[in-house]
């Protein structure tokens, strides 16, 4: 079993898989919310090791992928200004805006810098009082506390040359949007473990109850994912819909109180556009009024943004779990990680990139959407 041997504990993996195979009697569709989980699933071929009845649908949990095009275009415009030092996490460099990306802006003379932490950007602001330092504050609940701290510090230090271009998104409203979509096929969720490290699990019981859907908080290592699937299938087979924490080593029910209170102070909940998906009510954060002076959208008058998504790109459907990346016409032909048409191909956490990187290696480029032959799975179930 070529895949199983790559697990860090192959015996445990085999036992979990056997139990999933023994438990699943009917078809079930589970969505893993987090892009890190998608990556791990495809990389380890977990979807291929599961019984035929258990299907994994990839969720929208890649912050790079869901950052809306108009925000990317605003970032590009701000980054190109001579007075600006534009700071970003490295994985935003190649996300396509309407006609270029940050990598290109840098090539054309923009002062674009990659930072590891928003505090590094704050430090740049301190050391460059004559410049405007703008940090591209994207990400889910896991990243938001860091960005909140950066802007909180900026205010305390009286640094008026620091601002955030904010595009934060929140997971629970996305789950709500997925469950209420008419084409929804999702019957259970593997919730994103590190999001819950910060937020805790308080937001989920109500969702699980109202949509009668099991939600299992899951880490993103292969064994964590198998355990999450095992528990979700177990619940589904018994007609249950509870919130379970399958990642207790990093997730406490109450989350991280210090981080939560910082979020509360610095951000307020707003509707947000998700790239490829559209507007989801209450699905994001922006800086609260007290911190509005540090909002780059207020500080820089970014007008005349005209956005245009490539017509062939079906990232929106991929992000909602309606199609698999391989069902997109452009997958692996016009669209590759070198020539990405959509953010789901450029981000390493994006579903299209994960399929391109791992599935093509396994299947060869010609066999689009094919599954690894069942014979290879003989040792299972």
């Amino acid at each position: 079993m070529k895949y199983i041997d790559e697990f860090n504990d192959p015996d445990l993996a085999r036992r979990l898989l056997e139990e999933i195979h023994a438990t699943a009697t009917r078809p079930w569709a589970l969505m893993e919310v987090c892009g890190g989980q998608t990556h791990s699933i495809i990389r380890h071929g977990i979807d291929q090791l599961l019984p035929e009845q258990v299907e994994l649908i990839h969720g929208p949990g890649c912050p790079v992928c869901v950052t809306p095009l108009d925000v990317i275009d605003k970032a590009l415009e701000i980054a190109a200004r001579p007075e600006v030092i534009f700071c970003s996490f490295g994985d935003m460099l190649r996300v396509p805006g309407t006609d270029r990306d940050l990598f290109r802006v840098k090539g054309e003379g923009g002062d674009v810098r990659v930072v590891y932490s928003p505090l590094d950007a704050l430090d740049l602001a301190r050391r460059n009082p004559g410049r405007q330092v703008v940090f591209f504050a994207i990400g889910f609940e896991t990243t938001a506390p860091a960005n909140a701290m950066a802007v909180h510090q900026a205010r305390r230090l009286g640094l008026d040359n620091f601002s955030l271009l904010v595009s934060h998104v929140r997971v629970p409203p996305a789950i709500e949007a997925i469950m209420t979509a008419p084409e929804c096929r999702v019957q259970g969720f593997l919730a994103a473990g590190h999001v819950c490290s910060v937020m805790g699990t308080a937001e989920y019981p109500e969702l699980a109850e109202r949509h009668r859907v099991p939600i299992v908080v899951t880490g993103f290592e292969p064994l964590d994912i198998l355990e999450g699937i095992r528990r979700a299938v177990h619940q589904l087979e018994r007609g249950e819909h509870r919130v379970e924490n399958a990642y207790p080593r990093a997730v406490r029910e109450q989350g991280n109180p210090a981080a939560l209170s910082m979020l509360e102070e610095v951000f307020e909940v707003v509707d947000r556009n998700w790239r490829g998906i559209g507007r989801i009510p209450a699905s994001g954060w922006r800086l609260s009024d007290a911190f509005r002076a540090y909002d780059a959208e207020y500080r820089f008058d970014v007008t005349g943004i005209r956005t245009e998504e490539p017509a062939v790109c079906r990232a929106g459907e991929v992000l909602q779990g309606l199609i698999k990346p391989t069902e997109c016409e452009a997958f692996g032909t016009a669209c590759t990680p070198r020539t990405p048409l959509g953010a789901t191909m450029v981000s390493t956490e994006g579903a299209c990139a994960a399929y391109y990187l791992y599935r093509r290696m396994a299947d060869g480029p010609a066999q689009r959407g094919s599954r690894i032959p069942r014979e290879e799975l003989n040792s299972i179930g």
Partner: protein
Amino acid sequence: MCLAVPGKVVSIDHRADPMTGLIDFGGVRKQACLEYLPDVRVGEYVIVHVGFALQRLDEESARASLELFEQLGLLEEEFGDAWEQAARQENGSEAR
């Protein structure tokens, strides 16, 4: 950037503002903000995301994750040179 990497707290600077510690990620050492785990101690393992410690972790699971990240080349992705990675994509010498 989505990655949250486990590491061991090597030292803590209580006077730094915000409170900061040196974290060892299986050999790579980096500073991280400890404000969100104010009572963390030297020797404990924590999960670090974009330079912030977010939760504690037991030693055994921390070691197991680090080993896995190393095998998958994820540490390189997290701590490596992003410009180089972007340039590699641009030049098409390699997918990532």
